[in-house]
């Protein structure tokens, strides 16, 4: 067995992992703060891709389009939180599922009305490749890895170094005490939801150059995001990062060693974690 092949497959796996991490980060963050299991996360991911596509066609600069597009998704997220989500914080979980699932249907049909049913592709970005272990590593894998690490650093910085981040941590740790100290929960929940939607939009915009924008494009990746989030521990950002790495790498090595089993491996990992440690690797009971 060529060790270069396995090392190369590991790098590819890390790139795949970063893709999963980017999408799961917002999902787990939103849940950690608001305790809302947001199925519409995939819809925000889709909107991120479409907004980036459209802004790119107008502005011509991918990075600017990505940022503007994701921010717009964040605003839409905040709007959804104020208009709908904020009404169901006190209701049982099934209400969250129905409501956020309804949002998916609405956004998907809106996308179909505005952009049409035919999937759209953006001009390829980050083309070219590097030679690594004598194999071709595409630039977009490197770019996804960099983007994933940057998002991890951004989350770390925002949560540990900014005033807003400290408030978020306070209200997550002890909502009642935080309110007694004068924190505004409506504001914090809305902005937390906005930040989660922003991360979802960023994920959609980031994957656009390597795939395409299509109605319902978030359906598959959101399943992986849920697997990652549950394995890592619902609400744990560190857990999501680690479990995304696990899932990405076992998928890549699985494709290499046991191709017929590759797509089942993430589910097997999920089952194993649920059996052995139902709260997830970094989850709290």
């Amino acid at each position, binding site marked *: 067995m*060529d060790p270069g*092949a396995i090392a*190369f*497959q590991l790098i*590819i*796996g890390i*790139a*795949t992992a970063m*893709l999963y991490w980017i999408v799961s980060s917002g999902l787990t963050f939103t849940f950690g703060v608001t305790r809302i299991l947001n199925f519409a996360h995939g819809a925000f991911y889709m909107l991120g891709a479409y907004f980036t596509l459209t802004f790119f066609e107008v502005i011509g600069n991918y990075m600017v389009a990505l940022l503007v597009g994701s921010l717009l998704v964040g605003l839409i997220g905040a709007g959804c939180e104020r208009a709908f989500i904020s009404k169901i914080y006190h209701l049982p979980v099934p209400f969250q599922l129905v409501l956020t699932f309804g949002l998916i249907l609405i956004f*998907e049909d809106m996308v*179909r009305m505005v952009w049409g*049913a*035919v*999937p*759209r*592709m953006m001009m*390829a970005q980050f*083309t*070219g*490749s590097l030679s690594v272990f004598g*194999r*071709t590593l*595409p*630039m*977009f*894998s490197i770019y996804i890895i960099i983007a994933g690490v940057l998002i991890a650093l951004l989350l770390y910085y925002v949560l540990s170094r900014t005033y807003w981040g400290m408030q978020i941590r306070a209200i997550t740790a002890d909502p009642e005490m935080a309110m007694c100290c004068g924190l505004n929960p409506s504001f914090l929940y809305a902005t937390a939801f906005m930040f989660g939607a922003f991360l979802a939009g960023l994920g959609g915009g980031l*994957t656009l150059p*390597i*795939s*395409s924008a*299509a*109605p*319902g*494009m978030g*359906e*598959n*990746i959101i399943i992986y995001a849920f697997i990652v989030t549950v394995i890592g521990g619902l609400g744990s950002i560190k857990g999501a990062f680690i479990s995304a790495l696990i899932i990405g790498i076992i*998928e*890549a090595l699985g*494709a*290499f060693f046991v*191709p*017929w089993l*590759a*797509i089942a491996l993430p589910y097997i990992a999920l089952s194993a974690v649920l059996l052995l440690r139902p709260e997830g690797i970094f989850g709290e009971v």
Partner: protein
Amino acid sequence: MPPEEISRRDFLKYTAAFGAGLLIGGGVGYSLKKPEVQVVPKEAPVVGEKKLKDTIKIGHIAIFSGPFGTYGELQKRGSQLAMEEINAAGGIMGSKVEIIYRDSAAKPAEAVKQVRSLVENEGCDFIIGIDSSGVVLGVAEVMPEVNKLLFVTHAATHRLTEDLVYKKGIKEVFRLAVPVYQDGIMAAFIAAQLPATRWAAVHPDYEYGYASWELFQKTLSKLRPDVEFVAEAWAKIGTTDFTPYISSVMEKKPDGIHTVEWGVDLFTFVRQAKQMGLFDAVKYDGGYAWINPMGYSIDAMEALKTEYPEGCWISGRYVWPYPDTALNRKFVKAHLDKWGHYPAYSGETSYTAVYLIKKLIELTQTLDIDTHIKALEDMVVYSPAGARLIRKEDHQAVYEVPYGQVKHDPNYPIPVLENLKAMPAQMYYKKPPFDEVPPFTK
């Protein structure tokens, strides 16, 4: 090389078949006053016309939501065009045609629910459509129970016609689209002519992928005993990142790729494969040893445009440039005029399905299912895709669709096909009792 190895007896047989085809086709062609879907009746139609009911209702089930929702739209363009043409010309013996569209959501249970609702609540007389192989197997099972005919316009698994119609005897199901024989067997006949000897697969992980790859390997092994099958990758439907699959396959140093990826997955796969150098790995003098049976799907061509490398071998369940007949030219033009897009393969099959229903009713003057089945078996349907023989045993429409190489032509909004290669359908469609994979020895 192998297609050249046909025995003299086979040659005579095919020549005879070809001659018979010409005779029938010529006869039909001669009798045509205007280019329109026609059928060759086995018996002279009953004289006299009476209106059977005010509205003939057709339920059209396809995928209208999710990432593959385009496929419903592509089908709808065909069936709606046919409906409007027919209604503008007076309907079916005075009856108006109405099509009710329903979303299968690519789920068997949902499609079955829609069939029941279309028949029981909407009073549909026929069901057409169905996109996915997984879905069609579920739907076929309920057709005898609802007692309506189903014309399948897209789903390709050979298990539908071989197992459910031929072996199990579900007579209510007919398929107008080419089965997976196009994706596996015909693909192997193309592959056999290429220099590649180390073939690898990148397929969607479900029925269609497995069936295509199995037939491809069986046929190609017979045609070219020197080839090896070195790697396979099974990606989930809706995969965003194909890189782990591409790198795994490339590690085995293939010089030929067989892939039945379609829809959005195909766009993602082609883009990522290009950047990882998978196309370069399978390049040969005359193009790429890259066979993608459903590559000439209109959505793929419109999305990928020049990004799909020139020289790859692709096909469809119909490709708009073939055959060059007055009827096909008229259909392509009408489709372009109405929708601003070239017809997709499932657009043609849906268009033909609606017209076939019209001709069937006019021919039999009834809505009786048993009479319809009897009339359809062994019927020849003259359609935009050419002459289709509806085989009696398995209710499969037998017609050929060519493969061609991608060519970027600035005169067209989408890539065109060059170097078209077609073969008589009888040579590569498995035949009852389906125990042998082509090339046939007996």
